[in-house]
């Protein structure tokens, strides 16, 4: 077994798979190619990969099903490939266990960057009590947040929301996932509540300016992600 991380690439377009293989090799990855959902599951179970890139539309089924099957036994990062306008599909894929998605047509460099991001997150220690990102320090044990050394006061629900985002930083979390985690399953569709709290959290955490949010990014129609 070579030292390079292995990536399962499943797409029914051989041209895409073959070209991705070259691009990934250049980025230091080995590619395990697959062209159907069944093949993807076979390949993954024979030689467990370090990450997977799966097209949402496969000849023998949906990429969502592949995500779900993989999630039954592995925590490896999964990126799904989708077309624009398929927000529902993206949300379903994320809820089925995908970590992120990339929209076709994508720049291969972007895909590689996303792949590296999800791998980094997966490799980081999951049990750290204090997380520091870009000048923001979140002490999960003491429930204290500091920005540039100054303590920021958060309500309990705001802290819980931040904790879920930070613990999954780099990963795109759907509205439903956040609502279920923080408020409970009964609130799974209450996106308005989520939007309000995200806005408050941003007011307290994000630096002032027009550069857009630095920490909490919006994925329109899908969800939010805390930058890695």
């Amino acid at each position, binding site marked *: 077994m070579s030292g390079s991380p292995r990536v399962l690439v499943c797409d*029914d*377009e051989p*041209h*895409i798979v*073959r*070209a*991705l*293989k*070259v*691009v990934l*090799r*250049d980025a230091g990855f080995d590619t395990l190619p697959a062209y159907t959902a069944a093949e993807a599951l076979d390949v993954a179970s024979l030689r467990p990969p370090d990450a997977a890139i799966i097209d949402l*539309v*496969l*000849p*023998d*089924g949906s990429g969502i099903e592949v995500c779900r099957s993989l999630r039954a036994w592995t925590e490896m990062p999964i990126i799904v*490939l989708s*077309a*624009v*306008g*398929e927000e529902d599909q993206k949300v379903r894929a994320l809820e089925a266990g995908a970590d992120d998605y990339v929209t*076709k*047509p*994508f*720049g*291969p*460099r972007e895909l590689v960057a996303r792949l590296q991001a999800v791998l980094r997150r997966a490799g980081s220690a999951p049990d750290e009590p204090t997380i520091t990102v870009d000048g923001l320090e979140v002490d999960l044990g003491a429930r204290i947040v500091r920005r540039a050394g100054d303590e920021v006061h958060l309500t309990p629900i705001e802290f819980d929301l931040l904790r879920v985002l930070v613990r999954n930083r780099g990963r795109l979390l759907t509205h439903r996932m956040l609502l279920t985690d923080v408020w409970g399953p009964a609130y799974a569709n209450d996106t308005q509540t989520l939007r309000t709290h995200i806005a408050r959290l941003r007011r307290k955490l994000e630096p002032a300016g027009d550069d857009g949010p630095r920490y909490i990014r919006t994925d329109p129609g899908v969800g939010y992600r805390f930058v890695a």
Partner: protein
Amino acid sequence: MRARVSSLLLRAEPPSPLAGVLVALLAVAAITAVIFPLRSLSPAVSNGVLYLLAVLLVSTVWGLWLGLLTSVISLAAFNFFHIAPTGHFTISEGRNWVALGVFFAAAVVAGSVADLARSRATEAELRRREADLAADLARGLLGGLSVEDALAPAGERLAAALDLPWAAIALGPAQRNGARALPLAAEGRRLGTLLLPEDLYDDVVARFGERVVPALEALLSAALERDRLQAEVVETRALRRSDELKTALLRTVSHDLRSPLTAILTAAEALSTEGLSASERSDLSAAITAEAGRLAGLVDKLLDLSRLQAGVGEPHRDWCSVEEIVRVAIDDLGVAPDRFRLAIDADLPLVRADAAQLERAFANLLENASHYSGGHPVSVRARAVGRHLMIRIVDRGPGIPATEMSRIFEPFYRPASDRSAHTGSGLGLAIVRGFVEANGGRVWAESLPGQGATFVVALPLDADGATTEGPATRSAAP
């Protein structure tokens, strides 16, 4: 010569007055004959009451004036035969003057009452017939037909009911030689015109204006409103359908254009990496060429379809050879020519069609067949059958399930049995049908699942190419 209008609907034309006079005379004579023998049994003055029967009869049928005439005749007969001195029109006794006076007064009252009853009955009958006519016209105008189609039957119905030689209803202002035009309007808006024979009596026309026109106006207004609403429904439906098509188009563009684009972008990026082997390099550039070709093909199809849907695909017809068209289509496909086996009759007649459009249609059919044929050659047979040129394209693929047969020619339809998402755009067969039908032909599929599919194109051999009726369909023709 005035048009005859005997219908009760417009005017109760009384029976002939001459007949009335005759009946009056006969009735008086009969009554006189009946009471003459009784004069010895009862006083003549009391028997005179019987003459009132004649007055009632005549008043009821012929009206008050003949009734009064009957009274006078009765009076004369009564005087002549029953009042002393009989046989003379003189009266000797003063009390007989009184009896005659009382009789005359009673006759006038009875006649008036009878006349009133008669006109009431006539009026009631008239209204009933008017109501019948209105209901009839309502059925015609508001029933299934569109207003335009319902106008002619309604005119005929009107003419029949009114016993006119003809009557017509036109939309908007209208005029006709030898016709009187009555405007039909509602809420200050001119809706149409009622045309009647010019030679009608003025009072008949006045009656029309009073009794028929208002009902007709209300009906016409309702019918036009209904037509307008129906047109709106149809338009809304068409819009919704065109919306659905646009949504499907977006989805196709979103998916089918993005896949080749992704392959091209990725392959281009891969080409710029280091350490590529020569075979990888040629593989990647071949991928770019192939995917770019796929994109171009899809763009062609989208253009074809939008041309067809915009209705600008008007064919430029000229005499052309189907064999030539099929060969060009095969060349253009860029598939190895041995994938197709041609069996085209020698001296096949020419068809009058748009060669470029048919070429697009056949290219799509052949591409489709070669895609599903699973490596087996596709056979193309063409021969003249009756007044049609029949081209049969036979593949040995999985065939088409009966449930999908009726839908395969719909744009963006992808068979559920074909799970490979990237094999077709779902546009090809819609384009085939569009172009074949634009050229007066028909296309349909025949298939037994598991035994391949045959697509049949029937092109008319008539010079004008106007035949739209295809030969008998042996399977689910779309």
